[in-house]
Protein backbone atom coordinates (compact mmCIF):
# COMPACT_ATOMS: atom_id res chain seq x y z
CA UNK A 1 0.00 0.00 0.00
CA UNK A 2 2.77 2.41 0.90
CA UNK A 3 4.53 1.84 -2.42
CA UNK A 4 1.63 3.13 -4.49
CA UNK A 5 0.68 5.82 -2.05
CA UNK A 6 2.46 8.66 -3.83
CA UNK A 7 1.20 7.68 -7.28
CA UNK A 8 -2.31 7.13 -6.06
CA UNK A 9 -2.41 10.54 -4.37
CA UNK A 10 -0.98 12.27 -7.44
CA UNK A 11 -3.67 10.70 -9.61
CA UNK A 12 -6.39 12.20 -7.47
CA UNK A 13 -7.31 15.62 -8.86
CA UNK A 14 -8.58 16.86 -5.52
CA UNK A 15 -5.27 16.10 -3.90
CA UNK A 16 -3.27 17.87 -6.64
CA UNK A 17 -5.42 21.01 -6.47
CA UNK A 18 -5.48 20.97 -2.67
CA UNK A 19 -1.74 20.42 -2.44
CA UNK A 20 -1.01 23.23 -4.91
CA UNK A 21 -3.16 25.63 -2.89
CA UNK A 22 -1.58 24.40 0.33
CA UNK A 23 1.88 25.25 -1.03
CA UNK A 24 0.61 28.72 -1.93
CA UNK A 25 -0.82 29.29 1.53
CA UNK A 26 2.32 27.91 3.16
CA UNK A 27 4.36 30.48 1.22
CA UNK A 28 2.07 33.30 2.30
CA UNK A 29 2.16 32.09 5.88
CA UNK A 30 5.94 31.76 6.03
CA UNK A 31 6.89 34.77 3.91
CA UNK A 32 3.94 37.03 4.81
CA UNK A 33 5.82 39.75 6.76
CA UNK A 34 8.68 40.22 4.25
CA UNK A 35 6.21 40.17 1.33
CA UNK A 36 3.92 42.78 2.84
CA UNK A 37 4.65 46.20 1.30
CA UNK A 38 3.54 48.11 4.42
CA UNK A 39 3.15 47.64 8.14
CA UNK A 40 -0.51 46.53 8.46
CA UNK A 41 -0.90 48.57 11.65
CA UNK A 42 0.35 51.77 10.01
CA UNK A 43 -2.69 54.08 9.88
CA UNK A 44 -1.09 56.96 7.98
CA UNK A 45 -2.64 56.47 4.51
CA UNK A 46 -5.71 58.21 3.09
CA UNK A 47 -8.74 56.25 4.47
CA UNK A 48 -10.99 54.33 2.04
CA UNK A 49 -9.00 54.98 -1.12
CA UNK A 50 -9.27 52.69 -4.17
CA UNK A 51 -6.38 50.48 -5.31
CA UNK A 52 -3.29 52.12 -6.76
CA UNK A 53 0.07 50.73 -7.88
CA UNK A 54 1.35 51.39 -4.39
CA UNK A 55 -1.63 50.02 -2.49
CA UNK A 56 -2.59 46.94 -4.48
CA UNK A 57 -5.98 46.54 -2.79
CA UNK A 58 -6.48 50.08 -1.61
CA UNK A 59 -6.72 51.41 1.93
CA UNK A 60 -9.38 50.64 4.55
CA UNK A 61 -11.41 52.96 6.79
CA UNK A 62 -8.63 53.11 9.38
CA UNK A 63 -6.02 54.18 6.81
CA UNK A 64 -4.33 50.77 6.68
CA UNK A 65 -3.02 49.02 3.59
CA UNK A 66 -5.48 46.18 2.79
CA UNK A 67 -3.02 43.95 0.95
CA UNK A 68 -0.57 43.92 3.88
CA UNK A 69 -3.47 43.28 6.24
CA UNK A 70 -4.55 40.33 4.11
CA UNK A 71 -1.11 38.71 4.22
CA UNK A 72 -1.01 38.95 8.03
CA UNK A 73 -4.61 37.76 8.34
CA UNK A 74 -4.02 34.58 6.30
CA UNK A 75 -1.00 33.89 8.47
CA UNK A 76 -3.03 34.17 11.68
CA UNK A 77 -5.88 32.00 10.46
CA UNK A 78 -3.54 29.27 9.17
CA UNK A 79 -1.49 29.31 12.36
CA UNK A 80 -4.62 29.00 14.51
CA UNK A 81 -5.84 26.03 12.49
CA UNK A 82 -2.49 24.24 12.53
CA UNK A 83 -1.87 24.72 16.26
CA UNK A 84 -5.37 23.65 17.20
CA UNK A 85 -5.35 20.71 14.79
CA UNK A 86 -1.92 19.47 15.93
CA UNK A 87 -2.76 19.65 19.64
CA UNK A 88 -6.12 17.93 19.05
CA UNK A 89 -4.35 15.22 17.06
CA UNK A 90 -1.70 14.67 19.74
CA UNK A 91 -4.29 14.48 22.50
CA UNK A 92 -6.56 12.25 20.43
CA UNK A 93 -3.78 9.80 19.50
CA UNK A 94 -2.39 9.50 23.04
CA UNK A 95 -5.80 9.10 24.66
CA UNK A 96 -7.05 6.73 21.95
CA UNK A 97 -3.97 4.50 22.25
CA UNK A 98 -4.07 4.38 26.04
CA UNK A 99 -7.80 3.72 26.03
CA UNK A 100 -7.62 0.98 23.41
CA UNK A 101 -4.47 -0.74 24.66
CA UNK A 102 -5.04 -0.76 28.41
CA UNK A 103 -8.82 -1.13 28.35
CA UNK A 104 -10.64 -1.72 31.64
CA UNK A 105 -11.69 1.17 33.79
CA UNK A 106 -9.14 3.55 32.16
CA UNK A 107 -10.96 2.94 28.89
CA UNK A 108 -14.38 3.46 30.47
CA UNK A 109 -13.42 6.74 32.14
CA UNK A 110 -11.65 8.18 29.08
CA UNK A 111 -14.38 7.24 26.64
CA UNK A 112 -17.13 8.54 28.90
CA UNK A 113 -15.21 11.82 29.06
CA UNK A 114 -14.97 11.79 25.27
CA UNK A 115 -18.75 11.28 25.01
CA UNK A 116 -19.43 14.21 27.33
CA UNK A 117 -17.09 16.49 25.34
CA UNK A 118 -18.59 15.35 22.04
CA UNK A 119 -22.03 16.46 23.15
CA UNK A 120 -20.94 19.97 24.21
CA UNK A 121 -21.08 22.55 21.40
CA UNK A 122 -17.48 23.82 21.17
CA UNK A 123 -18.46 27.24 19.83
CA UNK A 124 -20.46 28.01 22.97
CA UNK A 125 -17.49 27.34 25.25
CA UNK A 126 -15.28 29.43 22.98
CA UNK A 127 -17.74 32.33 22.91
CA UNK A 128 -18.14 32.21 26.67
CA UNK A 129 -14.39 32.22 27.36
CA UNK A 130 -13.57 34.68 24.58
CA UNK A 131 -16.30 37.14 25.58
CA UNK A 132 -15.61 36.94 29.28
CA UNK A 133 -11.88 36.46 29.71
CA UNK A 134 -10.47 37.80 26.42
CA UNK A 135 -7.70 35.17 26.32
CA UNK A 136 -4.94 35.16 23.69
CA UNK A 137 -5.58 33.29 20.41
CA UNK A 138 -3.18 30.53 21.49
CA UNK A 139 -5.25 29.83 24.59
CA UNK A 140 -8.43 29.72 22.47
CA UNK A 141 -6.74 27.34 20.02
CA UNK A 142 -5.79 25.09 22.93
CA UNK A 143 -9.31 25.17 24.38
CA UNK A 144 -10.71 24.24 20.98
CA UNK A 145 -8.20 21.39 20.71
CA UNK A 146 -9.29 20.23 24.16
CA UNK A 147 -12.84 19.96 22.81
CA UNK A 148 -12.00 18.41 19.43
CA UNK A 149 -9.90 15.36 20.35
CA UNK A 150 -12.74 12.88 21.07
CA UNK A 151 -13.55 12.00 17.43
CA UNK A 152 -9.86 11.30 16.71
CA UNK A 153 -9.34 9.24 19.83
CA UNK A 154 -12.46 7.18 19.13
CA UNK A 155 -11.12 6.28 15.70
CA UNK A 156 -7.65 5.49 17.10
CA UNK A 157 -9.15 3.41 19.91
CA UNK A 158 -11.27 1.37 17.50
CA UNK A 159 -8.22 0.71 15.33
CA UNK A 160 -6.09 -0.20 18.37
CA UNK A 161 -8.71 -2.72 19.46
CA UNK A 162 -8.58 -4.48 16.11
CA UNK A 163 -4.78 -4.24 15.78
CA UNK A 164 -4.03 -5.68 19.22
CA UNK A 165 -5.39 -9.03 18.09
CA UNK A 166 -2.88 -9.09 15.22
CA UNK A 167 -0.16 -11.76 15.14
CA UNK A 168 2.74 -9.33 15.13
CA UNK A 169 1.46 -7.58 18.24
CA UNK A 170 1.00 -10.94 19.98
CA UNK A 171 4.52 -11.89 18.96
CA UNK A 172 5.89 -8.63 20.32
CA UNK A 173 4.14 -9.36 23.61
CA UNK A 174 5.52 -12.90 23.68
CA UNK A 175 9.11 -11.78 23.34
CA UNK A 176 8.55 -9.55 26.35
CA UNK A 177 7.85 -6.19 24.76
CA UNK A 178 6.49 -3.74 27.33
CA UNK A 179 3.31 -1.70 26.91
CA UNK A 180 5.06 1.48 25.82
CA UNK A 181 7.44 -0.40 23.52
CA UNK A 182 4.53 -1.96 21.65
CA UNK A 183 2.56 1.26 21.52
CA UNK A 184 5.55 3.22 20.26
CA UNK A 185 7.07 0.73 17.83
CA UNK A 186 4.06 -1.18 16.55
CA UNK A 187 0.80 0.64 17.09
CA UNK A 188 1.73 4.26 16.45
CA UNK A 189 3.42 3.87 13.04
CA UNK A 190 0.71 1.57 11.77
CA UNK A 191 -2.06 4.11 12.19
CA UNK A 192 -0.35 6.89 10.23
CA UNK A 193 -3.19 7.36 7.67
CA UNK A 194 -5.64 7.99 10.52
CA UNK A 195 -3.47 10.86 11.77
CA UNK A 196 -3.46 12.63 8.42
CA UNK A 197 -7.21 12.31 8.00
CA UNK A 198 -7.96 13.40 11.56
CA UNK A 199 -5.56 16.32 11.39
CA UNK A 200 -6.98 17.66 8.12
CA UNK A 201 -10.54 17.45 9.46
CA UNK A 202 -9.68 19.21 12.72
CA UNK A 203 -7.53 21.90 11.11
CA UNK A 204 -10.45 22.68 8.82
CA UNK A 205 -12.84 22.97 11.74
CA UNK A 206 -10.40 25.18 13.66
CA UNK A 207 -9.86 27.59 10.76
CA UNK A 208 -13.61 27.87 10.27
CA UNK A 209 -14.06 28.55 13.99
CA UNK A 210 -11.31 31.18 14.01
CA UNK A 211 -12.88 33.03 11.09
CA UNK A 212 -16.31 32.90 12.72
CA UNK A 213 -15.11 34.05 16.14
CA UNK A 214 -13.16 36.91 14.55
CA UNK A 215 -16.20 37.81 12.45
CA UNK A 216 -18.32 37.99 15.60
CA UNK A 217 -15.70 40.31 17.13
CA UNK A 218 -14.43 37.97 19.84
CA UNK A 219 -10.72 38.45 19.20
CA UNK A 220 -8.41 41.31 20.11
CA UNK A 221 -9.32 43.97 17.48
CA UNK A 222 -5.67 44.73 16.70
CA UNK A 223 -5.06 41.14 15.64
CA UNK A 224 -5.39 40.81 11.86
CA UNK A 225 -7.83 38.10 10.82
CA UNK A 226 -9.85 37.22 7.73
CA UNK A 227 -13.09 37.14 9.71
CA UNK A 228 -12.46 40.55 11.20
CA UNK A 229 -11.60 42.06 7.80
CA UNK A 230 -14.89 40.75 6.39
CA UNK A 231 -16.78 42.11 9.38
CA UNK A 232 -15.26 45.60 8.99
CA UNK A 233 -15.65 45.69 5.21
CA UNK A 234 -19.31 44.69 5.60
CA UNK A 235 -19.95 47.88 7.58
CA UNK A 236 -19.17 49.89 4.43
CA UNK A 237 -20.95 47.67 1.94
CA UNK A 238 -23.00 50.60 0.63
CA UNK A 239 -19.81 52.19 -0.68
CA UNK A 240 -18.16 50.79 -3.76
CA UNK A 241 -15.55 48.82 -1.85
CA UNK A 242 -16.85 45.28 -2.22
CA UNK A 243 -14.40 44.18 -4.92
CA UNK A 244 -11.16 45.46 -3.37
CA UNK A 245 -11.91 45.21 0.34
CA UNK A 246 -14.71 42.69 0.88
CA UNK A 247 -13.90 40.16 -1.82
CA UNK A 248 -10.18 39.46 -1.09
CA UNK A 249 -10.65 38.18 2.49
CA UNK A 250 -13.75 36.24 1.41
CA UNK A 251 -11.84 34.67 -1.48
CA UNK A 252 -8.87 33.84 0.73
CA UNK A 253 -11.03 32.28 3.42
CA UNK A 254 -12.99 30.20 0.89
CA UNK A 255 -9.79 29.02 -0.83
CA UNK A 256 -8.24 28.18 2.52
CA UNK A 257 -11.19 26.10 3.68
CA UNK A 258 -11.38 24.48 0.21
CA UNK A 259 -7.69 23.56 0.39
CA UNK A 260 -8.13 21.70 3.65
CA UNK A 261 -11.43 20.17 2.54
CA UNK A 262 -9.93 18.82 -0.71
CA UNK A 263 -6.92 17.41 1.13
CA UNK A 264 -9.13 15.83 3.79
CA UNK A 265 -11.48 14.26 1.24
CA UNK A 266 -8.74 12.87 -1.01
CA UNK A 267 -6.63 11.58 1.89
CA UNK A 268 -9.65 9.81 3.27
CA UNK A 269 -10.48 8.34 -0.11
CA UNK A 270 -6.98 7.21 -1.01
CA UNK A 271 -5.39 6.20 2.27
CA UNK A 272 -8.02 3.80 3.41
CA UNK A 273 -11.61 3.57 2.26
CA UNK A 274 -12.47 1.40 5.24
CA UNK A 275 -11.50 4.09 7.71
CA UNK A 276 -14.25 6.35 6.46
CA UNK A 277 -16.76 4.65 8.70
CA UNK A 278 -14.59 4.89 11.79
CA UNK A 279 -13.86 8.56 11.45
CA UNK A 280 -17.25 9.64 10.27
CA UNK A 281 -19.40 7.93 12.83
CA UNK A 282 -19.85 8.15 16.51
CA UNK A 283 -19.50 4.87 18.37
CA UNK A 284 -21.28 5.92 21.53
Amino acid sequence: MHVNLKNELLQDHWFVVGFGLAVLFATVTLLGPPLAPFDPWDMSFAPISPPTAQHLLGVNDGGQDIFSELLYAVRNTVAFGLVSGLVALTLGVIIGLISGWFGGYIDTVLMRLADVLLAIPAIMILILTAALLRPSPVVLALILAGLMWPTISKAIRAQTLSLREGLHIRAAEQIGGGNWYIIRRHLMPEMFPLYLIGFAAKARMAMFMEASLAFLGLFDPSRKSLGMMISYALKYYYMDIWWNWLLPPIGCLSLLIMTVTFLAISLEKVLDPRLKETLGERTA
Partner: protein
Amino acid sequence: MIDHATHSVPRRLGLIITFGLAALAMIYLSYSLPRLLPGDFVTAMYSSSHVTLTAEQEAELRAYYTEEPGFGRYLLKLASLDWGYSYAFLTPVSALFFGALPWTLLLLGTAHVISMLVGFVTGVEAAWRRDSHLEKSMVGGMTVLEGVPEISTGVILLVVFALHLGWFPAAGAETAYAEVSLLARLADVGHHLALPLATLVLAYFPGNFLLTRNSMVMVIKQSYITTARAKGLPARRIRYAHAARNALLPLVTRFGLRLAFMITGALVVERIHSYPGLGTLLYNAIQARDLPVIQAVVLASSLMVLTIILGLEMIYRIIDPRIEHAR
Protein backbone atom coordinates in the same frame (compact mmCIF):
# COMPACT_ATOMS: atom_id res chain seq x y z
CA MET B 1 -34.73 -10.89 22.21
CA ILE B 2 -34.55 -11.27 26.00
CA ASP B 3 -30.92 -10.36 25.57
CA HIS B 4 -32.04 -7.21 23.82
CA ALA B 5 -34.24 -6.11 26.71
CA THR B 6 -31.64 -6.65 29.42
CA HIS B 7 -28.96 -4.82 27.49
CA SER B 8 -30.85 -1.83 26.28
CA VAL B 9 -31.85 -0.43 29.67
CA PRO B 10 -28.35 0.20 31.08
CA ARG B 11 -27.14 1.45 27.70
CA ARG B 12 -29.89 3.99 27.53
CA LEU B 13 -29.21 4.98 31.12
CA GLY B 14 -25.53 5.45 30.28
CA LEU B 15 -26.50 7.71 27.43
CA ILE B 16 -28.69 9.84 29.67
CA ILE B 17 -25.93 10.04 32.30
CA THR B 18 -23.45 11.17 29.64
CA PHE B 19 -25.70 13.95 28.44
CA GLY B 20 -26.61 14.90 31.99
CA LEU B 21 -22.91 15.29 32.78
CA ALA B 22 -22.39 17.38 29.65
CA ALA B 23 -25.33 19.61 30.62
CA LEU B 24 -24.01 19.98 34.17
CA ALA B 25 -20.55 20.89 32.85
CA MET B 26 -22.05 23.61 30.67
CA ILE B 27 -24.18 24.99 33.51
CA TYR B 28 -21.24 25.04 35.89
CA LEU B 29 -19.01 26.77 33.34
CA SER B 30 -21.58 29.45 32.66
CA TYR B 31 -21.92 29.92 36.41
CA SER B 32 -18.24 30.00 37.31
CA LEU B 33 -16.57 31.73 34.34
CA PRO B 34 -18.18 35.16 34.89
CA ARG B 35 -16.77 35.10 38.44
CA LEU B 36 -13.24 35.12 36.99
CA LEU B 37 -14.01 38.23 35.04
CA PRO B 38 -11.77 41.29 35.20
CA GLY B 39 -13.69 44.54 34.81
CA ASP B 40 -17.43 44.73 35.24
CA PHE B 41 -20.61 46.09 33.79
CA VAL B 42 -20.59 49.26 35.91
CA THR B 43 -17.25 50.33 34.46
CA ALA B 44 -18.32 49.36 30.95
CA MET B 45 -21.64 51.22 31.21
CA TYR B 46 -20.67 54.44 32.96
CA SER B 47 -17.09 55.04 31.88
CA SER B 48 -18.29 56.38 28.54
CA SER B 49 -21.56 57.95 29.72
CA HIS B 50 -22.26 61.57 30.61
CA VAL B 51 -23.25 60.62 34.15
CA THR B 52 -20.39 60.87 36.63
CA LEU B 53 -20.89 58.60 39.60
CA THR B 54 -19.77 59.41 43.11
CA ALA B 55 -17.61 56.75 44.74
CA GLU B 56 -20.51 55.75 46.95
CA GLN B 57 -22.94 55.32 44.04
CA GLU B 58 -20.39 53.35 42.14
CA ALA B 59 -19.78 51.00 45.05
CA GLU B 60 -23.51 50.44 45.46
CA LEU B 61 -24.06 49.74 41.79
CA ARG B 62 -21.11 47.38 41.75
CA ALA B 63 -22.43 45.55 44.79
CA TYR B 64 -25.80 45.19 43.06
CA TYR B 65 -24.42 43.86 39.80
CA THR B 66 -21.87 41.47 41.29
CA GLU B 67 -24.19 39.86 43.80
CA GLU B 68 -23.19 36.28 44.47
CA PRO B 69 -26.14 33.83 44.34
CA GLY B 70 -24.36 30.49 44.93
CA PHE B 71 -24.59 27.49 42.61
CA GLY B 72 -27.71 25.97 44.18
CA ARG B 73 -29.77 29.13 43.82
CA TYR B 74 -28.34 29.61 40.35
CA LEU B 75 -29.74 26.23 39.31
CA LEU B 76 -33.11 27.02 40.85
CA LYS B 77 -33.36 30.38 39.07
CA LEU B 78 -32.29 28.75 35.84
CA ALA B 79 -35.07 26.17 36.01
CA SER B 80 -37.72 28.78 36.76
CA LEU B 81 -36.66 30.86 33.71
CA ASP B 82 -35.68 33.69 36.05
CA TRP B 83 -32.51 34.64 34.19
CA GLY B 84 -32.16 38.14 35.53
CA TYR B 85 -32.24 41.43 33.66
CA SER B 86 -30.24 42.43 30.63
CA TYR B 87 -27.80 45.20 31.55
CA ALA B 88 -28.03 46.87 28.16
CA PHE B 89 -31.67 46.37 27.14
CA LEU B 90 -33.03 46.65 30.70
CA THR B 91 -35.60 43.93 30.06
CA PRO B 92 -35.83 40.38 31.45
CA VAL B 93 -33.31 38.13 29.71
CA SER B 94 -35.89 35.40 29.20
CA ALA B 95 -38.13 37.84 27.29
CA LEU B 96 -35.25 38.69 24.95
CA PHE B 97 -34.35 35.04 24.56
CA PHE B 98 -37.85 33.80 23.80
CA GLY B 99 -38.40 36.74 21.47
CA ALA B 100 -35.42 35.71 19.37
CA LEU B 101 -35.80 31.93 19.63
CA PRO B 102 -38.74 31.48 17.16
CA TRP B 103 -36.80 33.18 14.35
CA THR B 104 -33.75 31.00 14.88
CA LEU B 105 -35.88 27.87 15.03
CA LEU B 106 -37.70 28.89 11.85
CA LEU B 107 -34.45 29.58 10.02
CA LEU B 108 -32.49 26.55 11.24
CA GLY B 109 -35.42 24.14 11.10
CA THR B 110 -36.35 25.02 7.53
CA ALA B 111 -32.70 24.97 6.43
CA HIS B 112 -32.15 21.52 7.92
CA VAL B 113 -35.35 20.00 6.57
CA ILE B 114 -34.70 21.30 3.05
CA SER B 115 -31.01 20.39 2.94
CA MET B 116 -31.63 16.91 4.40
CA LEU B 117 -34.46 16.08 2.00
CA VAL B 118 -32.82 17.49 -1.09
CA GLY B 119 -29.37 16.15 -0.16
CA PHE B 120 -30.80 12.70 0.53
CA VAL B 121 -32.84 12.38 -2.65
CA THR B 122 -30.12 13.77 -4.92
CA GLY B 123 -27.53 11.60 -3.16
CA VAL B 124 -29.58 8.44 -3.70
CA GLU B 125 -30.27 9.28 -7.33
CA ALA B 126 -26.63 10.18 -7.98
CA ALA B 127 -25.36 6.91 -6.50
CA TRP B 128 -27.84 5.02 -8.66
CA ARG B 129 -26.42 6.70 -11.78
CA ARG B 130 -22.84 6.14 -10.73
CA ASP B 131 -20.08 7.08 -13.22
CA SER B 132 -22.43 9.03 -15.46
CA HIS B 133 -21.37 12.54 -16.47
CA LEU B 134 -24.13 14.07 -14.38
CA GLU B 135 -23.05 12.18 -11.27
CA LYS B 136 -19.38 13.03 -11.71
CA SER B 137 -19.99 16.73 -12.18
CA MET B 138 -22.39 16.77 -9.23
CA VAL B 139 -19.83 15.16 -6.93
CA GLY B 140 -17.23 17.65 -8.15
CA GLY B 141 -19.49 20.64 -7.69
CA MET B 142 -20.60 19.53 -4.22
CA THR B 143 -17.00 18.99 -3.10
CA VAL B 144 -16.18 22.55 -4.12
CA LEU B 145 -19.30 23.89 -2.38
CA GLU B 146 -18.39 21.92 0.76
CA GLY B 147 -15.21 24.03 0.87
CA VAL B 148 -17.01 27.38 0.86
CA PRO B 149 -17.72 28.55 4.41
CA GLU B 150 -21.04 30.15 5.41
CA ILE B 151 -19.39 33.55 5.88
CA SER B 152 -18.44 33.69 2.22
CA THR B 153 -21.73 32.37 0.83
CA GLY B 154 -23.69 34.69 3.08
CA VAL B 155 -21.77 37.81 2.17
CA ILE B 156 -21.79 37.03 -1.56
CA LEU B 157 -25.56 36.39 -1.57
CA LEU B 158 -26.10 39.58 0.42
CA VAL B 159 -24.00 41.73 -1.87
CA VAL B 160 -25.43 40.30 -5.08
CA PHE B 161 -29.12 39.80 -4.33
CA ALA B 162 -29.82 42.43 -1.68
CA LEU B 163 -27.49 45.29 -2.57
CA HIS B 164 -26.89 45.12 -6.30
CA LEU B 165 -30.06 43.51 -7.60
CA GLY B 166 -32.29 44.61 -4.74
CA TRP B 167 -34.47 41.52 -5.00
CA PHE B 168 -34.43 40.68 -1.31
CA PRO B 169 -34.29 42.78 1.86
CA ALA B 170 -30.82 43.07 3.43
CA ALA B 171 -31.89 42.89 7.07
CA GLY B 172 -34.65 41.90 9.48
CA ALA B 173 -37.25 39.15 9.52
CA GLU B 174 -40.35 41.12 8.56
CA THR B 175 -41.28 44.65 7.51
CA ALA B 176 -41.70 46.81 10.59
CA TYR B 177 -45.04 48.52 11.35
CA ALA B 178 -46.68 46.98 8.30
CA GLU B 179 -50.32 46.21 9.08
CA VAL B 180 -51.26 43.63 6.50
CA SER B 181 -53.32 40.49 6.21
CA LEU B 182 -52.01 37.14 7.43
CA LEU B 183 -51.20 35.92 3.94
CA ALA B 184 -49.27 39.06 3.01
CA ARG B 185 -47.41 38.80 6.32
CA LEU B 186 -46.41 35.20 5.62
CA ALA B 187 -45.14 36.23 2.19
CA ASP B 188 -43.21 39.06 3.82
CA VAL B 189 -41.60 36.68 6.35
CA GLY B 190 -40.69 34.30 3.54
CA HIS B 191 -39.20 37.14 1.53
CA HIS B 192 -36.94 38.12 4.44
CA LEU B 193 -36.10 34.49 5.16
CA ALA B 194 -34.94 33.70 1.61
CA LEU B 195 -31.32 34.91 1.75
CA PRO B 196 -30.25 33.52 5.15
CA LEU B 197 -32.09 30.31 4.33
CA ALA B 198 -30.32 29.97 0.97
CA THR B 199 -26.96 30.54 2.70
CA LEU B 200 -27.57 27.79 5.24
CA VAL B 201 -28.98 25.34 2.69
CA LEU B 202 -25.92 25.90 0.48
CA ALA B 203 -23.75 25.22 3.52
CA TYR B 204 -25.50 22.02 4.72
CA PHE B 205 -26.67 20.47 1.48
CA PRO B 206 -23.31 19.44 -0.11
CA GLY B 207 -22.26 17.47 2.97
CA ASN B 208 -25.60 15.64 3.08
CA PHE B 209 -25.37 14.88 -0.61
CA LEU B 210 -21.81 13.53 -0.46
CA LEU B 211 -22.49 11.40 2.60
CA THR B 212 -25.68 9.89 1.20
CA ARG B 213 -24.03 9.21 -2.13
CA ASN B 214 -21.00 7.55 -0.52
CA SER B 215 -22.96 5.29 1.79
CA MET B 216 -25.48 4.53 -0.96
CA VAL B 217 -22.65 3.41 -3.27
CA MET B 218 -21.57 0.91 -0.61
CA VAL B 219 -25.13 -0.29 0.03
CA ILE B 220 -25.87 -0.89 -3.67
CA LYS B 221 -23.03 -3.41 -3.83
CA GLN B 222 -24.65 -5.63 -1.17
CA SER B 223 -26.05 -8.94 -2.28
CA TYR B 224 -29.58 -8.25 -1.01
CA ILE B 225 -29.85 -5.52 -3.61
CA THR B 226 -28.96 -8.07 -6.28
CA THR B 227 -31.62 -10.34 -4.81
CA ALA B 228 -34.19 -7.58 -5.01
CA ARG B 229 -33.27 -6.94 -8.62
CA ALA B 230 -33.48 -10.65 -9.41
CA LYS B 231 -36.98 -10.72 -7.98
CA GLY B 232 -37.88 -8.14 -10.61
CA LEU B 233 -38.87 -5.37 -8.21
CA PRO B 234 -39.32 -1.90 -9.69
CA ALA B 235 -36.10 0.16 -9.57
CA ARG B 236 -37.56 2.93 -7.45
CA ARG B 237 -38.75 0.45 -4.85
CA ILE B 238 -35.27 -1.07 -4.63
CA ARG B 239 -33.68 2.32 -4.37
CA TYR B 240 -35.83 3.72 -1.60
CA ALA B 241 -37.36 0.77 0.25
CA HIS B 242 -34.32 -1.51 0.21
CA ALA B 243 -31.16 0.52 -0.26
CA ALA B 244 -31.86 4.08 0.89
CA ARG B 245 -33.08 2.98 4.31
CA ASN B 246 -29.58 1.84 5.15
CA ALA B 247 -27.99 4.90 3.59
CA LEU B 248 -30.14 7.06 5.85
CA LEU B 249 -28.34 5.97 9.03
CA PRO B 250 -25.05 7.85 8.49
CA LEU B 251 -27.05 10.96 7.65
CA VAL B 252 -28.83 10.88 11.00
CA THR B 253 -25.55 10.26 12.85
CA ARG B 254 -23.88 13.07 11.01
CA PHE B 255 -26.65 15.44 11.93
CA GLY B 256 -26.11 14.88 15.63
CA LEU B 257 -22.35 14.88 15.34
CA ARG B 258 -22.20 18.11 13.38
CA LEU B 259 -24.98 20.00 15.11
CA ALA B 260 -22.55 21.63 17.51
CA PHE B 261 -20.43 22.71 14.55
CA MET B 262 -23.37 23.95 12.50
CA ILE B 263 -24.45 26.35 15.22
CA THR B 264 -21.30 28.38 14.55
CA GLY B 265 -22.41 28.88 10.97
CA ALA B 266 -25.93 29.81 12.01
CA LEU B 267 -24.64 32.51 14.37
CA VAL B 268 -22.52 34.01 11.62
CA VAL B 269 -25.27 33.86 9.01
CA GLU B 270 -27.78 35.61 11.29
CA ARG B 271 -25.26 38.36 11.89
CA ILE B 272 -24.52 38.82 8.16
CA HIS B 273 -28.18 39.11 7.25
CA SER B 274 -29.12 40.93 10.49
CA TYR B 275 -31.76 38.27 11.13
CA PRO B 276 -33.25 38.92 14.58
CA GLY B 277 -32.55 35.48 16.02
CA LEU B 278 -30.32 34.22 18.82
CA GLY B 279 -27.13 34.83 16.82
CA THR B 280 -27.82 38.53 16.42
CA LEU B 281 -28.92 38.78 20.04
CA LEU B 282 -25.66 37.13 21.10
CA TYR B 283 -23.63 39.40 18.84
CA ASN B 284 -25.24 42.54 20.25
CA ALA B 285 -24.79 41.24 23.78
CA ILE B 286 -21.07 40.62 23.12
CA GLN B 287 -20.65 44.14 21.79
CA ALA B 288 -22.37 45.64 24.85
CA ARG B 289 -20.66 43.24 27.30
CA ASP B 290 -24.16 42.30 28.42
CA LEU B 291 -23.22 39.35 30.62
CA PRO B 292 -26.62 37.91 31.62
CA VAL B 293 -27.69 37.77 27.98
CA ILE B 294 -24.45 36.13 26.79
CA GLN B 295 -24.73 33.59 29.58
CA ALA B 296 -28.38 32.83 28.91
CA VAL B 297 -28.03 32.47 25.15
CA VAL B 298 -24.93 30.29 25.41
CA LEU B 299 -26.35 28.10 28.12
CA ALA B 300 -29.89 27.73 26.80
CA SER B 301 -28.80 26.96 23.25
CA SER B 302 -26.20 24.44 24.49
CA LEU B 303 -28.87 22.70 26.54
CA MET B 304 -31.15 22.63 23.51
CA VAL B 305 -28.38 21.11 21.40
CA LEU B 306 -27.77 18.46 24.07
CA THR B 307 -31.47 17.59 24.13
CA ILE B 308 -31.61 17.31 20.34
CA ILE B 309 -28.54 15.05 20.18
CA LEU B 310 -29.91 12.86 22.95
CA GLY B 311 -33.21 12.60 21.08
CA LEU B 312 -31.36 11.64 17.90
CA GLU B 313 -29.41 8.94 19.72
CA MET B 314 -32.71 7.45 20.87
CA ILE B 315 -34.21 7.66 17.38
CA TYR B 316 -31.07 6.15 15.90
CA ARG B 317 -31.51 3.11 18.10
CA ILE B 318 -35.00 2.68 16.74
CA ILE B 319 -34.00 3.02 13.08
CA ASP B 320 -31.02 0.72 13.45
CA PRO B 321 -31.62 -2.04 16.02
CA ARG B 322 -28.12 -3.42 15.37
CA ILE B 323 -26.65 -0.73 17.62
CA GLU B 324 -28.22 -2.27 20.72
CA HIS B 325 -26.18 -5.41 20.18
CA ALA B 326 -22.99 -3.76 19.00
CA ARG B 327 -20.18 -3.46 21.50
